[in-house]
């Protein structure tokens, strides 16, 4: 791999970290990171004068994220092909787990609204899993690209 491409990918990793950090801050500011805050934001809370989100309202938030999540994951995950990791099965598990986590992270609010309030736990869990898996992916890429001698 050419040195300039290596730099370009390393910068992309830094930007991805920044994107995750800004997403985390935004989530904490707008919604909150507790089950109570999530329930209030999506299902409403009379005591806090918050109304429940509508399906259309959720769609407006979700729509750009469906494409953005998929694009970001595709770009990052396809670089795994160039890592030195020998355990290919673990990489496949990581890929499926990341896409599953982001699916539930995006769509759990709809399930919360239309199926059961218990999906509030799925939303929080999938968010944390998504962040964790993204950090693992970024670490794998960084370690293999920054220290590769090729």
């Amino acid at each position, binding site marked *: 791999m*050419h*040195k*300039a*491409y290596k*730099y*370009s990918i390393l*910068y*992309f990793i*830094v*930007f*991805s970290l*920044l*994107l995750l950090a*800004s*997403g985390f*801050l*935004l989530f904490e*500011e*707008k919604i909150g990171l507790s089950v109570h805050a999530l329930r209030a934001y999506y299902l409403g809370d009379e005591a806090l004068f918050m109304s429940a989100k509508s399906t259309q309202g959720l769609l407006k938030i979700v729509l750009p994220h469906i494409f*953005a999540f998929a*694009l*970001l994951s595709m*770009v990052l995950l396809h670089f795994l092909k160039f890592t030195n990791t020998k355990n290919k099965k673990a990489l496949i598990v990581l890929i499926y787990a990341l896409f599953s986590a982001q699916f539930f992270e995006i769509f759990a609010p709809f399930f919360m609204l239309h199926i059961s309030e218990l999906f509030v736990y799925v939303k929080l869990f999938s968010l944390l899993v998504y962040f964790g898996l993204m950090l693992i992916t970024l670490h794998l890429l960084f370690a293999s690209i920054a220290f590769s001698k090729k």
Partner: protein
Amino acid sequence: MRFTLIKDLKHDAIMKPVLGGLLFFILLYLVADLFVKQSSFGLTPDTVKATLFGNEEEFLDPLSKAAFLEFWHMEIFFSMMLLFTLSAVYIRMSEGSKKALVVVNLLFISTLVSLFSLFIAYFFKQNFVTFYLLSFHLWHITALFCSLYSLKRLYFA
């Protein structure tokens, strides 16, 4: 990213117009971004400060924390995707020269400085708006150079 594997891009009937189109639209995006920023966010220290912190004389409300973070989050996403795509084409068109390495570093570092400066300006020190604007213009000029240089190499070299 298949174009990184094709040996003679300038004579490839499929990849040449594809990359030409991509570079042309990147140019359009960069120019449009300047116009949008000028009208909705500001491109001078005073206008950016008025957007971020409000202005009592002009009855402008400050940007809320959530609105700022939303703006910052989107800026990060769009700039990372744009720069990554552009740098891949630029590196390929300049055949990985040492100059290309310097330009790619300048492009990414100035963008990172612009994003961090904006964050620091909003949360900690208003004067960082100046750093934000300087680095914002620098990364746009560098990106414009990369697009124009790549187009030149693709069609006229």
